[in-house]
């Protein structure tokens, strides 16, 4: 590794910072941004900088690295937890391998913690940096694909299930920028009803901006939201969202998409691994086209535990020992208690160093986790997997079974950031 740059300054970007220089940095890192997007990005930058959620690293006046986060809510077992969605982590080529990214991410994590986010998530381009700061793989984001023709004549509701199918078809109405709150509410009801783990909600301004895009066809039903656009000219469709609470609306959405069979060949769509989508086609025509994985960090362990939902019928009380160098407030001995769908993480105080020889120090039998193991556990990774991957130790088989039942999840996301 080359020497770390001597004159590096890391600070929040401000509205006065040069957007062109930031865009140049982004293009060197992620590739060239096409014209229309470029203008939009340039215009929106001062506003984003004003939020203080973007950090820049400067060598003299030259920006050499950047990292920012979005203000998001993430659904965990049907409850929303504030989450900082890290994005745009970039280092100028000539400054790579000199520790700049690590300094920047350390500062960003401090900023995220200072603002009170219990959680942070990101899509990694490389993992060692984020792992060294306590992020760990937590969930997937799938793009699925199905021939449009397979959406004509969906599998009907099971005749054995009496009343399904007897309800009236939902009415779809076009949604515009003024419907941002309604869209957020509809998707929230979907994720809450399914007690989903992983999906995120953006703020109303971002959703309004997205709904204003002329190439986006968006529809609201009473209990769901559908949004899609053309892809590859008019050869395929790309579905951002087709999520609803009821089977009638889910069916109406996919049937609506099936009406494109005269024009389009395939539907690419974002949907989750347990989405009803997988049970709607008559034949095995649906597949996962691409899977990205995202990482999670538990920034404030007690707040993250208290903020999420848990299965109502599960109760447990398990001692944990957490070691988290980057967020020392998470470190120490804790008692994790879950009951009635809620949970607390309470400090147990330091392990006693002296005690009667006949008693076992409870700390020595506690499930022991680093920041990465804690994040993976939070996301429902089985304890057996964590142990095999070297992310957990200590504790008892009974603890493992109880923790697995409490955190069981297959987290997913529908958004990219």
């Amino acid at each position, binding site marked *: 590794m080359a020497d770390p740059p001597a004159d590096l300054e890391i600070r929040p970007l401000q509205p006065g910072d040069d957007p062109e220089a930031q865009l140049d940095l982004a293009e060197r890192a992620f590739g060239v941004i096409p014209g229309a997007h470029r203008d939009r990005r340039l215009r929106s930058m001062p506003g984003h900088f004003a939020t203080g959620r973007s950090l820049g690293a400067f060598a003299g006046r030259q920006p050499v690295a950047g990292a920012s986060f979005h203000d998001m809510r993430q659904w965990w077992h049907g409850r929303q937890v504030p989450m900082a969605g890290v994005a745009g982590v970039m280092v100028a080529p000539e400054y790579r391998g000199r520790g700049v990214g690590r300094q920047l991410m350390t500062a960003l994590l401090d900023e995220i913690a200072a603002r009170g986010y219990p959680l942070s998530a990101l899509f990694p381009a490389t993992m*060692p940096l984020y792992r060294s700061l306590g992020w760990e793989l937590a969930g997937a984001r799938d793009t699925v694909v199905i021939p449009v023709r397979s959406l004509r004549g969906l599998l*009907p509701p099971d005749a*054995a*299930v009496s*009343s399904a199918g007897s309800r009236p078809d939902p009415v779809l109405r076009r949604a515009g920028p003024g419907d941002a709150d309604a869209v957020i509410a509809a998707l929230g009801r979907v994720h809450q009803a399914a007690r989903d783990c992983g999906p995120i909600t953006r703020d109303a301004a971002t959703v309004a901006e997205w709904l204003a895009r002329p190439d986006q066809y968006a529809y609201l039903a009473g209990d769901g939201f559908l949004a899609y656009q053309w892809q590859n000219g008019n050869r395929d469709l790309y579905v951002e969202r087709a999520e*609803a609470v009821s089977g009638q609306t889910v069916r109406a959405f996919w049937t609506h998409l099936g009406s494109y069979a005269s024009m389009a060949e395939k539907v690419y769509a974002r949907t989750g691994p347990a989405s009803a989508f997988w049970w709607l086609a008559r034949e095995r025509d649906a597949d*996962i086209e691409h899977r990205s994985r995202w990482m999670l960090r538990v920034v404030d362990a007690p707040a993250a535990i208290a903020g999420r939902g848990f299965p109502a019928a599960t109760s447990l009380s398990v001692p944990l020992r957490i070691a988290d160098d980057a967020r020392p407030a998470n470190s120490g001995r804790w008692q994790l208690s879950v009951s009635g769908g809620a949970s607390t993480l309470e400090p147990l105080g330091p392990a006693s160093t002296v005690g009667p020889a006949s008693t076992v120090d409870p700390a020595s039998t506690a499930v022991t986790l680093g920041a990465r193991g804690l994040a993976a556990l939070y996301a429902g990774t089985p304890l057996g997997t964590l142990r095999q991957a*070297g992310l957990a130790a200590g504790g008892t088989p009974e603890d493992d*079974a109880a923790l*697995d039942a409490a955190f069981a999840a297959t987290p997913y996301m529908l958004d990219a950031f």
Partner: protein
Amino acid sequence: MIVRPLAQDFDWDQYFDLTNRAFGPADEAMVQPGIEPVVAAGRALGAFDGGRLAGTALYHDMRQWWHGRAVPMAGVAGVKVAPEYRGQGVGRALMTALTELMAERGYPLSALYPATMTIYRSLGWEIAGHRHEALVPSRALSVMARPEPGAAARIRRPGPDDAAEVLEVIGRAHRDARDCGPITWDEATMRRWLTRPGRYADKDRYAYLAPDGFLGYRWRHGNDEIFVERVVASSAATTRALWAVAASNSTVAETARTQVGPSDPLWWMLREQDANIAERESWMLRLLDAPAAIAARGFPATDLAVPLQITDDLRPANSGRWDLTVRAGQGRLSSHRTDPGSPSPPGSSPGGQTPLALGARGLAALYAGTPVATLRRAGLADGGSPDADAALDGAFAATPFMLDGF
């Protein structure tokens, strides 16, 4: 058209002709030893038009792991109909008879990999889980898998006489992980696979056994790729040591194609996101005997009591009003008894709960951990209550997988 068990002296030429027409050219030398014991055990049915074999369907005797317990499972395979007999109900007649046979022989569960889903859905199977193949540059494996000193010394090459131990070791790994979905085969089959030329013993296919782990892999595409059929182990040290054996081929094979479940430690052991799912095959499940299937599987330590209304025309013994209870990891499906002194109206339980209505397909998908919200959205469940949905999701939560195709 007559459907009857294949007799042991049946015409192998006709059988292979049918297999080739249905599935493409088969390696007869590999297929026949696998089918012979199935025929001998009366687990293969044929549809005959006079002397002509028009179709077959068979099942393998398996155990399937559900939350750490092994449930007897009939693994349906070799369902094929000769091209000129298709669309005439031959497949349905075969599968109906096979379902009857499997139920008679006491299997609580049956699973299969569908080539088409319509027929199996109409008989009560539903999508339950997947078999994944991940593609990894083999160098990424060798970076990851540094065995602990001493672990490698405990790895040996198993022979036919190790069949029982191999099954024990694989089963223990699934039990310890409380896995849902993976299967174990019978001992005779494993013995055959460990005997040359078998699935784990031939000029291009290998197995390694540790006291608490098993590795099976083979060459593919010459020596360009290794196919890691499974790495299962109960300890982290053995997991690493077995991956190190597979990864040592990275000097020759460029890629490793590996069967792993969605929660396999491999995903968390790789330094970078080098593994991608290259293949994902769905399998379907059917509950042949609902009370037995519930009683035999494991559950998390969660308590629930939920009324179910099951409609299963093909297996009427599953139909009716049931009370599902789970307590201390043990499930029970008991026939709902109405209390004659109870004033509750018909259609509701004494506790006032409306039962969750399920067909055979919804029941299979629920058993496999499909969230009840998804079942409702897909038209596979109705009735019930939000509280019951939450309790059921907590009890059945799973992302089932398999490491075997059949």
